[in-house]
């Protein structure tokens, strides 16, 4: 069930009414939200409901075992087993085909022809997100940052809660579980903020990301050699913006829907294209994944030592980004994308350590501009690999871009307005939406309904028939 559909609208209205009717009865409310979440997930493919339940049961049992043991070695064994089991499930669905194809190619190179066991594996939607949440639960328990859940229901709901189930944000158990066990309230500010986030997310996804994709990005990336240099330059900017709009749009709707049900989720994107360094961009982009990688992957690579050598720090930064690339997909294009970001982050850190910038006033003003320009271009150029279905298209894109062929066909005035408009909005104050929500909360309900309805009607009027799945569903 996609967010911007009639089905989801009706589903949400029923859940909203029922969950608030059960506000004072925590157990029935949790059961309702769990049933709604399983219905939401099963609407795509009911066959994967068992996998969702298995993942939840696995982490619940590991958590219960961790809660019962005081022996550090045994606890380490349990957490290693639980994390490995989570990763094996994720790895099987995500990487089986990739490794089998790579192994077949390698064997052929060596002159060996073997019939390997081919399986047509469908990637269960949202598998990465619920696996990451499961891992964060058992690791946080092991680190003593949280206590085991009192009831399996809490953990099953934490793993499957429908607003963030299929594409994040990745919610931490320490943030979500306490919210489950207190009587929820819906404040006027939260309600208004939830509505604004839903509108913002719908607009980003159904209008902005959609037209960037269908009018420019999709055709140009389908056959880059057919387009002029200006179209190719425009399309690579447009794709960076499209991914941001698509993904942050989903996050906005998820956080907004959760807010209307009385749950508070943290921001997942914070104007990443206003960043003046790559490190800053990654602190603002898909914040829940970046912090997850920092806390569970980078920290695991670094080990218990807080201080490590510069070279080890660089290695860990690079490996974190490389594995982050591999998480996006089992393809060389994603690995190269991760590698570019890893190298660029290392280079940036190295330059900051060793190059001392001149202190003249004009240079102090200029350096953020240069920093922004370089950051945006590293991100958008690397995104060519991210978007290309294979290495052939990626190399063709770069060579066509450097061919300096004249003309401009797809990068229309509308595309220019969308790209530059989205970048300009990134420089608004961080709390612009919250301020808008604070103003909206005092409006009469009927007027608020007219504004909300008119905004949706406007999007329906200029938007497409139907809606494409969110890009991050595939991850």
């Amino acid at each position: 069930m996609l967010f911007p559909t009639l089905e989801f609208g009706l589903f949400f209205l029923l859940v909203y009414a029922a969950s608030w009717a059960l506000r004072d009865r925590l157990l029935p409310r949790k059961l309702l939200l769990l049933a709604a979440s399983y219905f939401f997930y099963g609407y795509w493919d009911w066959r994967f409901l068992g996998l969702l339940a298995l993942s939840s049961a696995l982490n619940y049992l590991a958590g219960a075992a961790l809660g019962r043991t005081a022996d550090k070695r045994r606890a380490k064994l349990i957490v290693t087993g639980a994390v490995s089991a989570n990763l094996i499930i994720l790895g099987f669905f995500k990487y089986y085909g990739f490794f089998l194809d790579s192994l077949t190619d390698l064997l052929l190179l060596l002159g060996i022809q073997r019939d390997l066991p081919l399986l047509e594996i469908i990637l269960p939607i949202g598998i990465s997100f619920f696996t990451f949440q499961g891992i964060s639960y058992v690791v946080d328990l092991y680190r003593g940052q949280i206590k085991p859940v009192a009831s399996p229901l809490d953990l099953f709901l934490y793993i499957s809660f429908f607003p963030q189930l299929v594409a994040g944000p990745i919610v931490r158990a320490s943030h979500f579980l306490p919210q489950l066990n207190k009587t929820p309230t819906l404040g006027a500010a939260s309600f208004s903020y939830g509505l604004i986030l839903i509108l913002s997310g719908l607009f980003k996804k159904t209008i902005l990301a959609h037209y960037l994709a269908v009018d420019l990005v999709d055709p140009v990336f389908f056959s880059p050699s057919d387009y002029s240099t200006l179209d190719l330059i425009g399309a690579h900017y447009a794709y960076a913006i499209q991914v941001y709009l698509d993904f942050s749009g989903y996050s906005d709707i998820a956080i907004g829907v959760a807010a209307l049900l009385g749950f508070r989720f943290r921001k997942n994107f914070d104007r990443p294209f206003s960043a003046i360094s790559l490190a800053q961009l990654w602190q603002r982009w898909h914040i829940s994944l970046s912090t997850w990688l920092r806390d569970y992957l980078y920290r695991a690579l670094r080990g218990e030592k807080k201080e490590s050598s510069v070279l080890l720090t660089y290695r860990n930064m690079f490996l974190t980004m490389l594995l982050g690339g591999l998480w996006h997909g089992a393809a060389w294009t994603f690995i190269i994308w991760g590698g570019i970001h890893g190298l660029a982050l290392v280079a940036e850190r190295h330059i900051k350590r060793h190059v001392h910038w001149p202190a003249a006033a004009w240079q102090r003003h200029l350096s953020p501009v240069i920093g922004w320009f370089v950051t945006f271009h590293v991100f958008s150029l690397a995104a060519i690999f991210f978007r290309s279905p294979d290495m052939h298209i990626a190399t063709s894109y770069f060579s066509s871009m450097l061919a300096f062929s004249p003309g401009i066909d797809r990068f229309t005035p509308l595309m220019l307005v969308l790209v530059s408009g989205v970048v300009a909005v990134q420089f608004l104050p961080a709390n612009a939406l919250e301020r808008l929500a604070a103003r909206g909360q005092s409006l009469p309900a009927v007027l608020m309904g007219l504004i909300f309805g008119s905004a949706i009607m406007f999007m329906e009027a200029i938007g497409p028939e139907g809606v494409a799945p969110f890009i991050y569903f595939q991850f």
Partner: protein
Amino acid sequence: MKTQTEQKAGHRRVVIRGYVVFAVSIALLLVFNSAKLRSAVRDYPANWATDRLVLAADEWHGWMGRLGADQLAPGLRAPFEAFREWRWPS
């Protein structure tokens, strides 16, 4: 500090406010966007219930058409499409 009763009353007002907001929005969409409703219900697999839904949506769209309410969406789309088709001078 608000008492628990005041908090509960405040919370209930917001939840009811939510019902009003959603009701007004749905009414607005039903009146001015009946074409999208009609096309959405046509996408459902055909059966006894969806056949009736399609008939009802058709009839509703017909009424809105007679009132002229179905002209708003195309009116909004036309200038957007004109801008979308606009090209740089060659």
